[in-house]
């Protein structure tokens, strides 16, 4: 019989990360379960307030500008950790590394010799019709051959099979790592006794590892490398993260207006004149990078930056043009990339995907709209999506005509019932199962892939919601990978 915070807790028809069956905690959660069971609600509430205050004081907030004055919101943080036993993590780690290497080989190939097209494993039409396939990148030699320096691959656990599968690769400018590091810091302060009992693998080597990779890209050699982080500025919702990472790596945080290109060399404007810049960790999308090459109205970028990049005078991370690999129709072919480039079988499952650009798939999708999730190939963050099972007739019909008009723009997948973790429900003041995903951050130096154990667990705090995005009421949890099995 569950009591205290857990009273009335039901794992339901989903894979529950904490309980193998009602009232039976899994081995990896034994410690946490025991400590939490003996905790009074008031004690828990107190710690929760402490955590919120800590985020507020540190200014770990995102800003909503809809009311004209700018209201700051906390990214909700749930104190119950998501725990992954070591063997399970090792498999995820290998699967992600395999994927990152294959994606990098794909990008090298698609902007180089295009063997995969010549061998007819992927259709030219699909690649060339992707707006993120950038002709400007064809035959560009990127430093050390790396495109995917940082990937934030989204994983979910399918309740039906209990298996992890990949939902998105996010090989452009994934964000969220700062929450991983700050969540951990706050958790160790709020729950020192639980931490002490569980053996949790550390995560805070991420900035040092990223810094090592960035430096290694410098065209003037590592020792002289001037590395900067290029941010759209204070009004960007991820600004906290930009300044956080710059601070942790001890590099300059710059905006487009701080940089200038002269004679194919990038400089930053300092109080003592111009200083050469070698490596740019950019957190600006491709299309805004350089008004001379892409969007002419971009005020965030640096005129001439692409010229300097193509000439090899400056390195960019991630590489330009990675968006083609994030196209959801291309995503469906990643298992094929792994076989084609590595001669291996994929370790992690990919969600079964119907590519509407293929006539057979299109016919199936139009027949089964009520059962499927339809996604626009270029969108992320839960936008441009149809949730077939919960949508009304009218919305379904609207999507049907959109799909018919432009099949290339859509893919469809079966609905994945995401696993759940007990999370604090503010209104009932007890724990309830809430759906989660997992975004590990993968760093690639051209030789090996380094992944800090765990990653960002996002949680849909609304009851029954499957949408974990912060823009749609999602929160986050600290993610623990254990030294052992629990």
């Amino acid at each position, binding site marked *: 019989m569950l009591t205290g915070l857990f009273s009335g807790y039901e794992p339901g028809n989903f894979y529950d990360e904490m309980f193998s069956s009602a009232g039976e905690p899994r081995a990896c959660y034994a410690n946490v379960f025991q400590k939490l069971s003996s905790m009074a609600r008031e004690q828990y509430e107190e710690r929760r307030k402490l955590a919120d205050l800590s985020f507020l004081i540190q*200014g770990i907030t995102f800003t909503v500008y809809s009311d004209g004055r700018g209201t700051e919101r906390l990214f909700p943080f749930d104190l119950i950790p998501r725990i992954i036993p070591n063997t399970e993590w090792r498999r995820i780690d290998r699967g992600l590394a395999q994927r990152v290497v294959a994606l990098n080989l794909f990008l090298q190939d698609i902007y180089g010799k295009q063997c995969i097209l010549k061998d007819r494993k992927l259709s030219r039409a699909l690649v060339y019709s992707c707006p993120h396939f950038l002709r400007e990148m064809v035959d560009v030699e990127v430093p050390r051959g790396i495109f995917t320096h940082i990937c934030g691959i989204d994983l979910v656990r399918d309740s039906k099979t209990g298996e992890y599968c990949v939902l998105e690769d996010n090989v452009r400018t994934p964000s969220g790592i700062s929450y991983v590091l700050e969540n951990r810091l706050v958790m160790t302060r709020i729950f020192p006794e639980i931490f002490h009992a569980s053996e949790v693998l550390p995560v805070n080597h991420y900035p040092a590892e990223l810094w090592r990779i960035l430096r290694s890209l410098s065209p003037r050699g590592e020792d002289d490398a001037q590395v900067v982080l290029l941010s759209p500025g204070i009004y960007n919702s991820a600004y906290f993260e930009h300044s956080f990472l710059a601070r942790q790596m001890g590099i*300059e945080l710059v905006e487009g207006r701080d940089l200038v290109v002269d004679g194919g060399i990038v400089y930053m404007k300092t109080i003592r004149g111009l200083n050469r810049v070698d490596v740019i960790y950019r957190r600006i999308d491709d299309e805004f990078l350089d008004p001379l090459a892409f969007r002419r109205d971009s005020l965030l970028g640096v005129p001439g930056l692409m010229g300097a990049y193509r000439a090899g005078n400056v390195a960019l991370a991630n590489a330009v043009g990675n968006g083609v690999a994030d196209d959801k129709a291309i995503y469906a072919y990643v298992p094929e990339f792994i076989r084609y480039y590595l001669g291996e079988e994929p370790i992690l499952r990919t969600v079964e995907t119907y590519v509407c650009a293929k006539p057979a798939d299109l016919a199936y999708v139009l027949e089964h709209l009520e059962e499927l999730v339809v996604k626009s190939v270029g969108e992320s963050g839960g936008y441009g999506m149809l949730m077939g099972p919960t949508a009304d007739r009218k919305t379904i019909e609207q999507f049907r005509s959109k799909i018919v008009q432009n099949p290339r723009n859509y893919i469809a997948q079966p609905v994945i019932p995401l696993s759940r973790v007990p999370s604090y429900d503010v209104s009932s003041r007890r724990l309830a199962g809430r759906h989660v995903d997992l975004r590990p951050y993968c760093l690639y130096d051209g030789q090996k892939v380094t992944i800090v154990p765990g990653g960002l667990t996002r949680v849909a705090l609304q009851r029954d919601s499957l949408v974990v995005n912060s823009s749609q009421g999602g929160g986050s949890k600290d993610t623990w990978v254990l030294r052992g099995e629990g």
Partner: protein
Amino acid sequence: MLSRIADSLFWLARYIERAEDTARILDVNYHMLLEQSQDAYQLRWEPLMVMAGEENLFRKLYSEVNAENVFEFLAFRHDNPSSIVQCIAKARENARTIRDCISREMWEDINGLYHMVSRFNPTDEIVAGPHRFCDKIKFGTHRFHGVTDATLEHDEGWQFLRIGWSLERAEMTSRLVDVQYQNLLDELPTLGTPDNHQWMAVLRSVGAFEAYHRQFHSSIEPEKVAGMLILQPLHPRSIRFSTTEVQSGLRAISGTSPGSYANEAERLAGRVVERLSYDKIEEIFKQGLHSYLNELSDMFRLIGSDIARNYFYYAVVA
């Protein structure tokens, strides 16, 4: 150091200083005026608006000059760009753009100050009077100075902060003396005798009341007060002290040795420091206090714009 960072540090400091100076002036004058006759009471709020440089905006927003309106306007109004809450908000906004360049303690301190200020309810505070609010602001800004001093490397970034708040302070003190003195002259015909209370308030608002008495004992004489606020070499809020700080900061950045200068800002700062070091208060009054202070204000403005031209917004020939 990036030009943009230096620019933000400079303005971060200026806004903090402006918030503190406004709080000081508001607090002291409010309480001094409680002891005044009704006529004088109305009259004396005007200079505060002039000092804040926002008298036109005030007239647009309010029909009557009274204690409540002035307090609300100087402390809380979001549409007054110089109000205390706006200064703190802008200081914090500047700090936010350069979080990676200031210490974590500094950021948390200014962020905490901002959240504290936002929690004040103007309606309650207006009933309670400005002392509680102003005290918190003073304490908050002092703490920020302390945290900055104790946690930030005293490198060139620190020098830009030092220049920022010293230049703002020099300007505010100069404006304070000018406005109060003008006001006094205007009132002489109607009031008959010079009013010491007002000068006591001036001294209090820059925290120099005790220091004045230590030096001159009891009698408050406008000339001595002005002399102290303008020429005193060691009082941290005198114009001379503040300008010397600006000069030292500029030299620390450029590495120029005394007696020479690397840019126009340094040349002007040097010239002002020389004047303030060798002028006597009698000479200043002979020239006319208002015209003397006006010249200083012009200089401060030029120093500010030349710092920007040299370090923040220089032209890049590409």
